[in-house]
């Protein structure tokens, strides 16, 4: 059966009119045919993160969910090569058997979407490039991709990178693909750098008294030789009783006080060095034992899972914003958000998750202006049902948009792949 017939037949599609190509060459055939027909398609994996970004303007949907499975895992070479839509859970499972992990700590967006875990696929992660709490220490998803294969908007199978850490052979297209929301290629194969899991972890909780103190702590933590691998600030927001209740129930741990704002920082390594680092940090931050609580490994691990699952915003029906700014401006932003929007701060002061409980898009516009003034950006990760997209959900300036258009043109001249997903016209 020719691809042309196939794409019009029920064999290739399910009852919802979704195409399910089984392998790379079928993806290529399908996109080549859609290219000929000038017929754009939405690209999805397991649909766990497809709510992020604009709604695509396309008649077709292509699911890459059948392009799944581990191709080559070499623990001693610190890499794993997988088919693009291999579920994150499957990858984490096989890595864990060899005491290794994806160091960028994938965020589980399932909780904000439907209140339960749904990590989706590695292609989805790469397309969004949203790393978890360890980001400021180990880099983002883009820093862990060694190479990929995929199909561009003309139906050509292309590849870039390889399996080695050091590789400057040609343009580094892996970086470009990271965070491109499926608008440049339909991914078929991804090679990731993996790292050994740390033996153990402990989390120290501090209860700061004001915003200046929070950022003073963050600054000292990120300036220390005793490296930490996570630092969050969870505010009390006493005026919003629902948030307080939610916060207290999500972060309910034996050794954590409730009804109070707190900073939590994580130290990882072998047991002796964890103690040494915590002692050093206590001295550097001038903390006595009575000022802090400590979560042992059995509390520390679930604590960071809850942070990375965004559980305080579980099933949120409001707009959820992800804002990244240079940390030096963080205390100003905290002051603005205090009792105004629910939020928490990750990445040792750089990443803000903000819930905007308002029908007025002005609020998002104001926050975007603030993000830009502070030298950062924001993305509306989840929109409320009333959101009319009057304010763009991504942040982009004119020059970058112009260059992005050119780059898009070079991969996908007819805008077949996920048109409009990121910006209008791309």
């Amino acid at each position, binding site marked *: 059966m020719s691809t042309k017939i196939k794409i019009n037949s029920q064999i290739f599609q399910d009852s919802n009119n979704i195409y399910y190509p089984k392998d790379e060459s079928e993806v290529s055939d399908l996109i080549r045919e859609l290219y000929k027909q000038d017929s754009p398609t939405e690209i999805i994996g397991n649909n766990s993160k497809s709510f992020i970004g604009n709604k695509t303007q396309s008649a077709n949907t292509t699911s890459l969910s059948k392009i799944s499975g581990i191709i080559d895992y070499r623990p001693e070479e610190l890499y794993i090569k997988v088919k693009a839509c291999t579920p994150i859970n499957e990858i984490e499972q096989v890595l864990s058997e060899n005491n290794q992990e994806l160091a960028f700590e994938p965020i589980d967006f399932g909780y904000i979407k439907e209140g339960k875990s749904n990590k989706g696929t590695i292609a989805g992660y790469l397309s969004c*490039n949203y790393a978890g709490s360890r980001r400021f220490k180990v880099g983002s998803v883009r820093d862990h991709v060694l190479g990929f294969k995929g199909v561009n908007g003309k139906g050509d199978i292309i590849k870039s990178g390889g399996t080695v850490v050091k590789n400057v052979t040609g343009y580094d297209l892996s*970086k470009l693909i990271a*965070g491109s929301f499926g608008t440049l290629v339909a991914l078929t194969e991804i090679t990731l750098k993996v790292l050994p899991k740390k033996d153990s972890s402990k989390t120290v909780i501090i209860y700061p008294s004001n915003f200046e103190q929070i950022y003073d702590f963050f600054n000292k933590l990120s300036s220390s*030789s005793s490296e930490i691998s996570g630092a969050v600030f969870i505010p009390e927001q006493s005026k919003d009783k629902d948030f307080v209740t939610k916060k207290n129930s999500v972060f309910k741990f034996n050794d954590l006080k409730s009804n109070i704002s707190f900073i939590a920082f994580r130290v990882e390594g072998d047991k002796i060095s964890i103690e040494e680092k915590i002692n*050093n940090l206590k001295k550097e931050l001038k903390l006595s034992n009575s000022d802090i609580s400590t979560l042992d490994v059995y509390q520390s691990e679930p604590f960071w899972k809850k942070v990375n699952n965004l559980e305080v915003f579980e099933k949120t029906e409001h707009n959820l914003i992800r804002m990244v700014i240079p940390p030096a401006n963080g205390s100003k932003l905290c002051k603005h958000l205090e009792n105004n929007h629910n939020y928490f701060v990750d990445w040792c002061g750089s990443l803000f998750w903000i819930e905007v409980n308002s029908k007025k898009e002005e609020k998002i516009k104001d926050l975007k202006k603030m993000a830009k003034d502070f030298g950062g950006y924001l993305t509306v990760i989840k929109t409320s049902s009333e959101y009319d997209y009057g304010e763009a959900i991504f942040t982009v300036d004119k020059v970058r948009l112009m260059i992005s258009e050119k780059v898009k043109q070079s*991969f996908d001249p007819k805008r077949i792949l996920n048109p409009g997903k990121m910006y209008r016209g791309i």
Partner: protein
Amino acid sequence: MSEIALPKIDSSILNRRSEIVKKLSKLTNIENVLSEADELRPYETDALSVYTQTPLAVVLPENTEEVSEILKYCHSENIKVVPRGAGTGLSGGALPLQDAILLGLGKFNKILEIDYENKCVVTQPGVTNLGITYAVQHKGFYYAPDPSSQLACSIGGNVAENSGGVHSLKYGTTTNNILGVQMVMMDGTICRFGGKSFDQEGYDLMGLICGSEGLLGVVTEVTVKILKTPEVVRAALIGFPSIKEGGDAASEIISSGIVPAGMEIMDKALIEATDNFSKAGYPRDAELLLIVELDGTESEVNELIKKVEVICKKNNCSSLKLSNSEKERLSFWAGRKAAFPACGAMAPDYYCMDGSIPRGKLAEALLEIKKLSEKYELPVANCFHAGDGNLHPLIMFDGNDKEQLRKTEEFGSEILKTCVRLGGVITGEHGVGIEKRELMCEMFNDNDIQQQLSIKKSLDEKNLLNPGKVYPILRKCAEEGRVHVHKNKDKFPDLPRF
């Protein structure tokens, strides 16, 4: 080396030389435009000095606006431009063209801002790699990527080549250590990608620029991340009686879960050469020398170094020394850091190769190179960034002997063939430049190259910025903008694809 094809010379540009020089003198200070033969000579080559070419003129702008005006002018007049940093590149990326302006960034030599609160430094591209660390080390910070040329190479050049160094396994290469760049496109558009915050949203254009070898834009400002200097750094210097045992030990260190800050391997030839040259006190009876560096807190480092010791003893090491002071640690590195000059002292010329291989294939690669050295009757010394798989064989030869030149080139090609066969790549950190340009057709297939050329075309439609570099040019194996490989006519005809 052998003659290399460069883009077709535009004689109309050559004829207009004096007019162009005059115009450039209006776009920047007149003293910043060099056009006399003796002024141009220092710019004839970069660190791949076997190739030389006098540029049409050299222009040394002083600020971003001047760069923009110069590029805008060249764009409108169809004048080619070759950007140049410190000229320390080893793949000929900054080799001038007869009908092109050489745009030197040497005057961009100031650090603009040191921002400890945001842990970054905003710098002009002409500042040296080590210059950044010098500026922040009094507060206990440093810039992590450390290519061996770090004393001289510029940060702008590091961005162009995505430079690494001995610590890349743990700390990454340039692309993982910069936060933002300001860049001027060939049409003069000034743009900014990233800034002081992590992970710009949208297409990662900074990631695309990093390692693009000056083909997509001229970087005029870089924001780099700075890191706190580790509390303790210790090194182990370990000798092995055979290549296999040393290679196995290096692999076992990684697979045991240790991520060393640096891990270097030297073979017997290099141990002797560097020890003669720098009196580093290396174990001269060893077939292979392994230097492992660990950093972190005191107990962390002591714990890890114990593990390294156990692994090395298990793999029959013949000698093992652990550094007990900073002075001793630096002495372990003294020989390794002198590897290139040491080879320079042993033969009239040396040719430095730069492949990457999977770590576990090291023993196989070194044994293969040893056999090739016997076959070509040319001495070779090998150093290897064992942490990240980057192999640097140094072939020693006499450049005045044509036959030796030919053999060296063939030897080099066979080494790269071996790297690709073992699952690696043809360049780990030196870049493609003109040196490995023809090999791109072998590394990548038609679609892959075509996609990269499309990106180039979208950002530099007239192909005026650093043309003839990285991608095979029209008359070699790319015709009508499409690339195909003429089997057996290339410099490395039988290299397999991967």
